[in-house]
Structures are given as C-alpha cells and as structure tokens.
C-alpha cells in the first residue's frame, strides 16, 4: 500500500445512507449480477446494517481502547511442522474443469473491471 496512509483504515466518515449505486458497485467488485428487485432489497438491508453501525459510532467511547477482536486471546500460533496434503486427484475431481493437474479458469483479463 505504497504511499497510502492507512491510519484511518476502517474508520472513514459515515455516508448519509448507502445508495443503490453503492450497492451496484459492491456487487460488481464481487462479480455478482443483481436484478433491480435485488438491488432494492440489498440497498435497504445494507442500509439497516449501517444504521446499526451508526448507532454504535454515536456512543461516547473516549478512553476505550480499539479492539480488533471480541475474544481475550492473543498470539495463537502453531509450530512450523508439515501436515499431509490432500489427495490431488480427489481435489481436482471437484473442479468444473482441469488441465495438466491444474484448475482451468476463465481468462483473468477482459472481464468487467
């Protein structure tokens, strides 16, 4: 993230209300095609979720440390020891298309950006 200031990572200014265009953009990033009725429904649902976040943001939390996780856990790590891999043929059998023991996928460029 060269040159990008990341200090304000998740804490942007809250938009007034999520718009239909915002939802369409998010759907596009996830390569989802949404119909008109779905766009309306998700705009409304996402708006409700953001309303809840807005309620939380309105609380006076001065003096409360930022929390990345609700559990009182830190430093959960494992030893660097190898475990058996899955059977390749079994895994590839679940793929729609394979070639030369690899997953064959549509071209990565030329899709909607």
């Amino acid at each position, binding site marked *: 993230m060269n*040159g990008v200031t990341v200090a304000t990572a998740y804490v942007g200014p809250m938009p007034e209300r999520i718009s239909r265009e915002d939802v369409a953009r*998010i759907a596009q990033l996830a*390569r989802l095609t949404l119909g008109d009725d779905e766009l309306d429904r998700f705009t409304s649902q996402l708006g409700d979720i953001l309303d809840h976040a807005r309620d939380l943001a309105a609380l006076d939390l001065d003096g409360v440390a930022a929390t990345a996780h609700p559990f009182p856990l830190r430093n959960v790590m494992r030893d660097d020891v190898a475990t058996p891999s899955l059977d390749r043929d079994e895994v590839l059998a679940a793929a729609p298309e394979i070639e030369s023991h690899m*997953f064959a996928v*549509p*071209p990565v460029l030329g899709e909607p950006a």
Partner: protein
Amino acid sequence: MSEWETVIGLEVHVELSTATKLFSGSPNHFGGEPNTNIDPVTLGLPGALPVLNRSAVELAIRAGLALGCTVQPSVFARKNYFYPDMPKGFQISQYDRPINVDGSIELPGGTVIGIERAHLEEDTGKSTHVGSGGTRIHDADYSLVDFNRAGVPLLEIVSRPDLRSAEDAKAYVSELRAVLVTVGASDGKMEEGSLRVDCNVSVRRPGAPLGTRCEVKNVNSLRSLGRAIDYEARRQIDLIESGEAVSQETRHWNDDTGRTQTLRSKEEATDYRYFPEPDLVEVDPDPAWIEEIRSSLPSLPRERRHRLVDELGADPLSAAIVVERGLDRLVFDAVAAGGDAARALNHARNNVADGEADRLDAAGFASLTTMEADGALTATQAKTVLAELIAEGGDPAEIAARHGFQAMDTSELDALLDSLIEAHPDDWAKFCAGEQKVMGFFVGQVMKATRGQADGKVVTALLMGRRP
C-alpha cells in the same frame, strides 16, 4: 533529462523460508508437481480455519529488526478481490497494523532509503495463461491455476518513495536481498520468484509535489527492473511534454518488447473492502522474544562494510564488493594473522573468485600479502602465487621459489637503467624535460629485460628519483 526527476518506491514481496505455509501445515516448497501442496486452508474449503505459523512471525521479526524497523502489535485483515489465484475470494494480509514499521536501509554508496512497513501476508496461487498468443496475459483464452504457492508466507516490504534512479532501485533490491539472506529470512532467489518486485514510478520537476504514479508489475530480474523504470519514466515524461496527463494505473512490463502496457486501472484501497480477519487474533510478540531475536542477528552487510572501511581503511567501493562476495571474513583473518590489509583487500576484490575463499587458509593468504608488501613479490607474481595457493594450497614462499620469483635487487635494476639511459639518450632527455609518457617506455624496457620479474612500482620510483 535533467529537468525531470524520477521518483521510485518499491514493494518487494519476499517468500519466508519456513517449512510450512503461513496459516496451515501444508508444505512451503518450490518446484513441486502442481497442486500437491494443498490442504483445506490453502483451498479455502468451507469450515477450514487459519492458524498462524510461529516460525513465519519470527522470520518477519528478524527481517524487520535487520531493517531497523519497530516491531509492533499487529492484526491480520482480509483483502477482498476477485481473482482465481485466491480460492477464498480474499487474501489474508496486514493493513492498518503491520508487524514492522519505520525502518531504513543503507545502500553501499551511503544513501539511506526509508522503509515504510514490512508486513506479513499469504502468497497467491500461480496462474499460467494459455491462449493463441502464447503465454502473455493479454492474449489468454483461459488460465491454469496451481495452488502450491497459495498461502506461502510473504513479507511485503514497502519502501518510501526515496529512490531517484534505476541504478538506485537496483542497488536497493540487491542490498535488501543481501540483508534478508544474511539473517536467514529468505533464500532471496529472484529466478524462483522468492523475491518479487513491483515498482511505483512517477516523474516531476525537482522540488515539485509528487506526480501521478504508475505501478509496474512483472519485473522478474534486476535487469528488468532497471529497464522497466527507465522505460516508464520516459513514457510519463513524453506524455506530460506532449500536454497529456499520466493516469494512475497498474502496468505490466513486457521483457520481450521492452515496454509497459496497461493491466488495469488502479484499485482504490476501498475497493478491497479491508476488514479485520475474524478467524485470527492479534499478534503481540513478547518483548523478551523480540530481544532474543535481535541478539541472534548476524552482522549485517552494512555493518561489515563499515568495519572494513573503519578498521582496515578500505575504500567504500572495495568494501562493498568484498562484502557482497562474502570475503570480508578472509580479509580480517589474514590481517589478524599479520597480513597486509591493503593487499589483502585488493586480492579479495580482484583475484579471488566466488566460492574460493573456503579453499584459502588465512595464514597462507596473510604471508602472501606480507611478501608482496615487503617487495619480495611483484603484484603480478603475487597474483600467480595466489592462484596456485587457491588451486593447490601450500606455502606461498615455496610456490614463489618454484616459479623462480625473487625480489630484484635494486642495484640490479639501477645497473639496468644505466644501460637503458645510455642506449636511449633522446628519450631520457624528453623524460627529464617532463614528458611523462616516456616513463612508460623505460618501464616497458625494464620489464622486457627482466621478463616481467621487476616490480613496476620500484622501477617507477627509481626513474623518478633519477630525474633532475
């Protein structure tokens, strides 16, 4: 183009030398058959949960400390994007709280380049593009994905935009690689993709605010890095000078055509919809652990260069070359054994090939440099003796004797000069009148008469001493 300044920042992704992946026990192993190092976590199968590899954290801290970074509590985040090389649909990375921040690296020339951050993340799978136009990404009909590399621990090291030329950028990557290899964080093999470089390039008038940058990907060697930067800077300058604007985008370097081309318009950070990875907890390394790692760090290339300069009087370039080739230990051992520092440095820099240091014992090397310093061997003779010392070992004095190398007595040389001056009175007159190039003539004649046994420096001194 002196009126333009190129500004470069580099993102270096380096694969950490662990046995297993960042979040699972699947092996971290280069060169295996496709899709053999895969497990439910690697494939993002439903219900699979990541568990952090302690060794990856330790190597990240080692690298961070070696780069002068502050190691801080860190949090993993999901970077969401749609691409078949990550089957989960997101990459686990670090975003607003990276493990290492605010470091720097000193290049052999003395320039200090800032390092903004060095964070942990998982590598992606490897795509092979198949299509009518060959393997070029722009012509692909479809792609084949191998997930062996997916989940391999990476350290992404982000420089500040402190670099100003392709040469600097190459020196930075070389130095970074040397540091990472020295501390054992990575094997640093660019040819195997263990170390990959993306470069951000912009141009500006000196003193002006930073220009719009383009990120150039697919730079797979130091040579490509230099070419890509020079091409990209030229392209941007041409655009601006013809009245157009540079648009911020990601460009793909094509090593065959020597050009960059648009890959995609640059995503905004918000497009990645980063959020804290709910399946992983905070990493807050115990200060005692960090200090233990710090105390186990070997001497870094920069420190080794400074030692050569400070303690042995090496010039900075020689120090850089000798350290890069790993010969500083030999030089110090030779000096400790009573050898001549200047000559030891010179031989290490010029006359010892990579990998030959092991075959050279410090005592023998030391006595060779002493013989040379005492005038018992000329520089040329010393080189011959050294080559044999490396090839077969033995005692430098015996080798020199076997070759019939012996110091020319100064009186012998004086007598020789007397006869040469007598035979070439006109040349001698010119030399005495200050014509420096005639010196070479006389030295050449002495060398010819002694079949190269005379020490050129001694002959020169004798000639200068005779000039009125």
